[in-house]
């Protein structure tokens, strides 16, 4: 009885916390169907008093929404795939191969996570400029190919795969390439899902770096486009909310797809070492 009561209380608390977390998103979604004057009105209603689609229809008045959306999707998918692959292969090497300087190398990878991004952004910008990669997706994809966090996560995760499986494969004549692609990759599914979700989210919402290196409107990304709604003197909230509502759909889908593996992956990486 006591257990049941505490479970109800816990669920109630979680329900309240969940509602508080989700409410701003729900408010934003409904507000995307309101006029700006209603969004800014003194008397606030959750549901639109006057339902309009203009914020969606006129979204292109600020920038080419569809183009920016597809650009973001392309860059995010490519970066996520690359990071997943490089993190898994580096994690595999650092976890399952014994060589001199392995711990130093891993420490070096970890140290890259500890340098604030604002310290590296100007040298990174100068390098990209001198490579002639400005206004090109090379500037977005190549520096993002390796992730210290991803390598760390995958090293921890792959450590949980028994060495015996790898040794058995070697005895059966499997080469290292085969072992990685046919044994490690499928067995690291949960860790890969976690990295994929994190990386997808970070790349999708990254604003400053794409903004600094991309100039052409036809190559620009959605996170930069969303900032265009903030004018010098005013903000077009309705259009901003409409664009944001659409922009979060891919992230939701990715999470929805991988949530089971994501949770398992996080838990596994946290306890195995």
């Amino acid at each position, binding site marked *: 009885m006591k257990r049941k009561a505490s479970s109800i209380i816990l669920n109630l608390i979680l329900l309240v916390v969940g509602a508080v977390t989700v409410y701003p998103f729900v408010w934003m979604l409904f507000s995307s169907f309101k006029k700006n004057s209603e969004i800014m009105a003194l008397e606030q209603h959750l549901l639109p008093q006057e339902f309009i689609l203009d914020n969606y229809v006129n979204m292109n008045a600020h920038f080419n929404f*569809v183009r920016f959306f597809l650009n973001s999707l392309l860059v995010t998918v490519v970066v996520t795939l690359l990071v997943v692959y490089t993190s898994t292969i580096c994690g595999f090497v650092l976890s399952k191969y014994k060589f001199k300087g392995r711990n130093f190398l891993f420490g070096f990878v970890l140290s890259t996570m500890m340098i604030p991004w604002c310290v590296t952004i100007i040298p990174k910008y100068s390098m990209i400029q001198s490579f002639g990669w400005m206004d090109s997706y090379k500037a977005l994809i190549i520096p993002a190919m390796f992730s210290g966090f991803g390598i760390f996560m995958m090293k921890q995760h792959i450590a949980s795969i028994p060495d015996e499986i790898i040794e058995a494969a070697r005895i059966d004549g499997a080469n290292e390439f085969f072992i990685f692609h046919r044994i490690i990759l499928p067995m690291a599914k949960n860790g890969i899902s976690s990295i994929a979700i994190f990386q997808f989210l970070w790349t999708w919402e990254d604003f*400053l770096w794409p903004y600094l290196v991309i100039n052409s409107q036809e190559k620009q990304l959605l996170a930069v486009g969303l900032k265009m709604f903030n004018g010098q*003197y005013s903000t077009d909230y309705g259009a901003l909310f409409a664009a944001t509502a659409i922009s979060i759909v891919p992230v939701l889908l990715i999470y929805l797809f991988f949530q089971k593996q994501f949770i398992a992956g996080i838990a596994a990486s946290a306890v195995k070492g």
Partner: protein
Amino acid sequence: MMKKRIFVAMMAAAMAMTSLAGCGSGAGKSTGGNAEAKVEAPTEPFGDTIKYDPSVEINDGKDISVELWEWGSDDLFQQVIDGYTAIHPNVSIKLVNNPWEDYWTKLPLALDGDKGPAIFNVHNSYHENLINYMAPLDIPLEDLQADFTGVDAHVIDGKVYYIDYGMMTGSVYYNKKMWEEAGLTEADIPKTWDEMREVAKKLTKRDGDKLIQAGLNFNDDFHQNYLLGLNYQLGEKLFQEDGRTPNVNSDAMKKVMQMLVDMYEVDGVGSKDFGEKGADSFGQGQSAMVIQWGHYYNTLKTTWSDIDFGVFEIPTFDGNPYAYNRYNGESTFGVNKNAPADQQAVAQDFIKYFLANDEAQINFNLAMSTFPAKKSLANNEKILENPSLKVLSEHIDHYIWPGPMPSTVETSLKKAGQDIFFNGVDIDTALNEAQENIIKDMKNSSFVSVENLYAFDK
């Protein structure tokens, strides 16, 4: 199965919404020339003193491409680009639109190398960050002075790097419906602050002790729209003789601050707790009058289109002010001194075209609700059709620009006002503190006030 259904439903929703967005007008900004509207290219020289001769070739007629960086108003810029490229088809100007706030991070980084934009939009509040990257304008100073007001304030060692195409300042916006309900007519438009206070009292509504309609609301605005401007009406400048020492604890500033306190606490025409921002409160139909700068006209037209409003000139203390208010300029473009010489030549020519082109000047000023700095446009019909500009036309020469003041002047006075209204600090103490704070913050600034260049300087 369930997950699949949700996935399909969300994909369908996303696709429907993105295709809806694709249907919208605007269809993404064309960054090249405007293919739909054919732009007539003038053949005869045009302009006042600054003349633009379309027959003079640029870059010897050879193809050249430059970038123009700006924020916010891409249609406006594209019109000027289309006009210019119609005259010079060998020139291609790529417009790069930026979000306002982050433009000031990206632009200096880009200008630091040799691959930055040849032309870029300037705001004088970022003067110190940009001036070292700018090339002086290739137009004789006398020509600029002949055609535009306020040029002298932009002269640095005999050279001009940018000027103002328009001047923005504050006016009183009033709700016409509330005005009528209070039994007021056009004849009641106040000329002095005493009259303003009486009108504000009539426009104030209470339900018992509870304020339900403010006659005047200056919440979150008092520093920008009152303290930094009304001092001029009383003959006091914002900076002392040396142009560097602030003058914000002057008697004039204290008088203005006292008037604001009295309006809320003695007259009861508003309250510090009645709406976080006066501008929003006016739009929400809660306040009858606000003093706002020109940009508010466009905000009312777009965000608060339901409000029927009128505009009148800011009142004065005695009808004969030293100056009516402070103004700030909307700046012309900058030329990147690190850009290749041929690109700089295009940039210089483009700015000359912009300055000589009356239509571009009118369009930019109407879009920003700024009064044209071009002297020949002061009585232009289209300009005077905009009520927020019409009210300025009579005394526009009696407004002062103090120069690109460091932001500490505004923020310190904002804090002073908040201390007075919310923390019970007395006016003298709060303004003295603001004075000390500004002096401290300006130690490393190269700012020198240009108030002494005011035409009616004492």
